């Protein structure tokens, strides 16, 4: 296992180099002068030149790339040219928000998606099956901004049940410890903040969960249908097991591998920041950070951001691969 992990980590090196080259080149492919973009439409030629000098934009590309990688290897991810804060700090400030949202969305997607998928598979072609699979199709195709606005209109504006944007209401204070507000409010025993945090978390996480939920439901259904046909399921029934035991302990466990794969991919995607959801629900996460950095041509944030997000993505995939061996004993990590 340890050897496998080390091997995988070594295998990451070319991936990271590839990603870094793409991240580096990407911003150079966007039309327009970054110095101009940073300083604004009215910047003087003198100011533009000095900024280009300062950012090293006048050097040949390979020199710029070498400097970029050199800094990263020293753990220096640069500073945002817009806010002047270290990129890593900008990320650290927003990462907990994105992680909290992603985890909540994933929980919802997994619980609802798997349950719906299992019931659909057990009751293939039933009304539930048809309804939930059509629902899943709709879930995959719904534009999130529309869904988000409708949810806000219904639950926040009309019913007043939930809060439409941000992570906390104005006037609620919470001492940040981990910056995961659910955790923080639990740790500090701040129940008002916990309630408020959940009220804010529900809608964006549901909105964000729709697509993974739909994908997981469909994957669970097809995987379960496959497994339910297997002989060992008949064996389990012949043992005299209860139906639920057969379905969840025997069938679902075996059907879980492809579901886990999908979950891993979806979670990785969510971790990259959900730009639309974070925008609609004013969620201060890395999706929005990246979006705004791209709009403002904030080089260091975009370049290093892509790199950091890729690392997270790859890391999650590694974890999923390791989880495989726990879920399926037939898989040996070598």
């Amino acid at each position, binding site marked *: 296992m340890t050897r496998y992990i080390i091997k995988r980590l070594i295998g990451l090196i070319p991936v990271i180099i590839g990603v870094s080259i793409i991240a580096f080149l990407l911003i150079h492919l966007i039309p327009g002068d970054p110095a101009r973009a940073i300083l*604004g439409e009215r910047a003087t030629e003198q*100011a533009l030149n000095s900024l280009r000098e300062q950012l090293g934009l006048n050097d040949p590309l390979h020199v710029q790339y070498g400097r970029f990688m050199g800094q990263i290897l020293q753990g220096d991810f640069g500073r945002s040219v817009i806010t002047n804060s270290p990129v890593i700090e900008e990320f650290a400030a927003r990462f907990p928000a994105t992680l909290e949202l992603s985890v909540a969305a994933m929980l919802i997607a997994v619980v609802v998606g798997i349950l719906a998928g299992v019931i659909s598979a057990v009751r293939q072609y039933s009304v539930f099956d048809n309804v939930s699979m059509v629902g899943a199709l709709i879930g995959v195709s719904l534009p999130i901004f529309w869904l988000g606005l409708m949810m806000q209109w219904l639950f926040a504006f009309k019913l007043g049940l939930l809060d439409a944007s941000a992570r906390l*209401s104005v006037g609620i204070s919470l001492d940040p410890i981990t910056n995961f507000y659910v955790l923080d409010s639990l740790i500090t025993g701040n129940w008002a903040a916990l309630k408020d945090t959940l009220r804010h978390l*529900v809608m964006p996480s549901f909105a964000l969960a729709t697509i993974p939920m739909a994908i997981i439901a469909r994957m669970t259904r097809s995987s379960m249908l496959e497994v339910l046909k297997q002989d060992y399921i008949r064996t389990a029934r012949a043992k005299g097991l209860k139906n*639920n035991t057969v379905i969840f302990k025997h069938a679902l466990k075996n059907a879980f591998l492809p579901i886990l794969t999908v979950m891993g991919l979806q979670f990785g995607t969510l971790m990259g920041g959900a730009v639309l959801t974070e925008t609609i629900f004013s969620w201060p996460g890395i999706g929005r950070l990246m979006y*705004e950095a791209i709009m403002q041509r904030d080089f260091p944030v975009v370049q290093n951001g892509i790199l950091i997000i890729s690392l997270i993505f790859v890391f999650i995939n590694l974890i999923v691969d390791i989880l495989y061996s726990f879920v399926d004993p037939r898989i040996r990590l070598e």
Partner: protein
Amino acid sequence: MKVKRLAAALFLVLAMMVNIVGCGGGDNAAKDAGGDKEKIFVFARSGDASGLDPINVTDGESLYVTQQIFDTLLEYADDSTDLQPGLATEWESAKDGKEWTLKLREGVKFHDGTPFNAEAVKFNFDRWRDEKHPNHQGDFSYYTYMFGGFPGIIQDVAAVDEYTVKFVLTQPQAPFLANLAMATFGISSPEAVKQHGEDYFKNPVGTGPFKFVKWEKDQQVVVEKNAAYWGEKAKVDKIVFRTIPDNSARLMELQSGTIDGMIGLNPDDVETIKNDANLQLLMRPSMNVGYLAMNTEKDFLKEQKIRQAINHAVNKQALIDAFYAGLAKPAKNPMPPSLWGYNDEVKGYEYDPAKAKALLAEAGYPDGFETTLWAMPVARPYMPQPKEIAQAIQQDLAKVGITTKIVTYDWQTYIEKGENAEHDLYLFGWTGDNGDPDNFLYVLLDKSNTVKGSAGNVAFYKNDRVSSLLVDAQKESDQSKRDKLYKDAQVLINEDAPWVPLVHSTPPIAAKKSISGWLPHATGTECFVGVDKAE
């Protein structure tokens, strides 16, 4: 059956999630923790501040916050760009406007308790203009725009005594005082700047009516009332600047009452606000102009009559109705009417296609001609839907026989090509900085700004008489004389018609009915010291 039980469990989980969260009730949460009778004004806009050091930001999102925390030496009047005392109480110029001596307000303290005095003013200006200053960290973009680089025209700043400061300029600058009133030139506590260094933008300390409390990235900036403020004290205890990127979501929050005021409305939503008994619509006086610049160096457009014909051909009111939701005024001058020096005597060119045709015939083109019409790729307050506006103008021009082809590029290229005089008809616009006519007329229409590659005068309009008027106005420090010079210039410009001045847009603002004392200012940001909230 098992499956039914499963389904039941599923719905139970869902119901619980909704319930846990729902049981809080709408208003309790705010009351629970909000405490006693703290008055909080919650203001929302689309983006977060990029920094809170006013000199190092250029965006309204940041300046809106810093405006509350910082005072400037001079201030704009609430409802115009007229100047009034701020941290400086008196000012006078000497040596033909090359020297300015300012008397400072006494007894003012920064939020960190350090005193405000001439040394503090000197420190701020030295930090901004001297690239070698130990605290010169950042772009200081606005300093370079307004004062022409580092150190620019400010040769020296001297603390004459505790409360007197003297500026020595390399050349007279008429809008000098107006520049000092810009929110970006807010005066920081020297101690705080030194203490926080590169991180000062996260720890702003000024003398303003509100003190900085905290900034949670992409979520909110909180400022609280400065009880020791030198002027009239703020009426609310706190202001929370929230970031809600989506326009519709932001409006929904206003409707559901979680925010008190917002900027950034979809034009379509103006009606919604008018129809909502709990909301009010405020209009920000315009400090911009959207225009169609005609490249006076090109064939056809060289001809004054043709330019006048085009002026008559464009239906401005139709544009305003179609694309600005009525929230704009048709323009006749290159500067907005909220500025002093605006010449209302100028008649402009009314919409009259027949007259346009006649002028074309006079110019020798009774059947019109072909040219290109350049459309901006991005929306701006003065040009919300550039492509559609270009199409409307295209149709207007077609009616008088002028055939146009619409051209567009990405924003950077668009600007560069414009500065390079590659265009014919060019849609563009300008938002003023300091409320001085110079900031419109000189920047956009003086012959000295027609250098290819960096031209601000994209009509490449060169009129020596206009230019001498504008330059004279720069040297003059008597405002009534300047007023006259600018009015004269507008008459000449109108006659030459290098532009079709299209509109001055008035950005709408929405607030709860319970909010009073919010006076939107033409500069784009305003101080909330007078804002109150009825319970």
